[in-house]
């Protein structure tokens, strides 16, 4: 029979024969140097998307007629580059000194950083792209690409809904992180009190 007293639990847990496979020191140093240059997988996907947007709208700038379409394309490119810069700025590598701080503080800080990033996605991720898209779509109207207002509205609804969806999903994720932060604070009110 298994008992839930301290010694029995220690025996059970520490009796597990898991062993760390030590990495050779040279390998650790090589990987540490590589990590410093590495870009997270998620960021790589975002940067690839930005490169794709730059390529497509760069092509539009060259081939499409009318100032509004060209200006809109250039603004979209500029907006995409701003998004890439913001992404790099906001998701830089983990602070090695911060990793040695107490676990609760480190976790709370991570949650706060993510929460702020998601809550402000309208400003740094969606906002920079809106002017370019608006000018580009106005250019399409000016070029007579739509027979009726309904046709244009249907066309405009697609990017509008996508943007709205991105914004709402990120706001929802930010709200969930805020709940976690609040729960964390609620379980250790005496610590918060000491810090104030």
């Amino acid at each position, binding site marked *: 029979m298994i008992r*839930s007293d301290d010694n029995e*639990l220690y025996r059970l847990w520490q009796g597990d024969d898991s*062993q760390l496979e030590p990495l050779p*020191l040279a390998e650790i140093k090589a990987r*540490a140097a590589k990590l410093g240059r590495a870009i997270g997988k998620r960021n790589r996907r975002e940067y690839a998307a930005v490169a794709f947007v730059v390529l497509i709208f760069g092509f539009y700038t060259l081939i499409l007629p009318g100032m509004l379409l060209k200006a809109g394309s250039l603004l979209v490119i500029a907006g995409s580059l701003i998004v890439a810069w913001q992404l790099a700025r906001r998701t830089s590598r983990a602070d090695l000194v911060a990793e040695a701080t107490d*676990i*609760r503080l480190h976790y709370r800080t*991570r949650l706060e950083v993510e929460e702020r990033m998601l809550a402000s996605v309208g400003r740094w991720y969606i906002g920079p792209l809106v002017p370019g898209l608006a000018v580009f779509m106005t250019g399409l109207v000016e070029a007579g690409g739509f027979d009726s207002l309904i046709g244009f509205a249907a066309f405009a609804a697609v990017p509008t809904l996508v943007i709205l969806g991105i914004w709402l999903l990120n706001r929802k994720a930010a709200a969930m992180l805020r709940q976690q932060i609040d729960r964390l604070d609620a*379980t250790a009110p005496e*610590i918060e009190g000491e810090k104030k």
Partner: protein
Amino acid sequence: MNEAEQDRLFADAIGRFGGALARMARGYEADADLRRDLEQDIQIALWQSFAGFDGRCALSTWVWRVAHNRATSYIMARRRHTRRRWTNIEDIELASDDPNPFDRATSEQALAQILSIIDRLDPPDRQILLLYLEGIAGAEIGEITGVSPDAVATKIHRFKATLTRRFAQSGDAL
């Protein structure tokens, strides 16, 4: 700190805590291949961190903080893909149809039950329980995690009570 000293501290840490770090990794990642990646990531984080080790806390405190913080970053990133929801120990409810290893009370099954509880926990509670299972005293757990020793004791009590309830349900109560 020079690199030779950094290397020495790292070797010392792995020598003293290697097995414990492997057990800790098990509390964060169930998949063996992914766990190996996590273990390697922790070793790199530890070696890097020793460049800033100033001796103001014990080596063990430093090692646990860095290892748990890196593991927390890992599961936070993984959660974006898995959409897992965590809770704190106070809100853990074991459904009646959960596998109950204490029915037959083998060590392997009991360990599976402990891991299944740990897997549902918020990182702060997860860290407290993993440190407790390593036999670390409440005061040191408090220093490592940034939680008061009283709060640590409460969390551990709740964890043991949850396990005891499972014994009771299976008729193996103490």
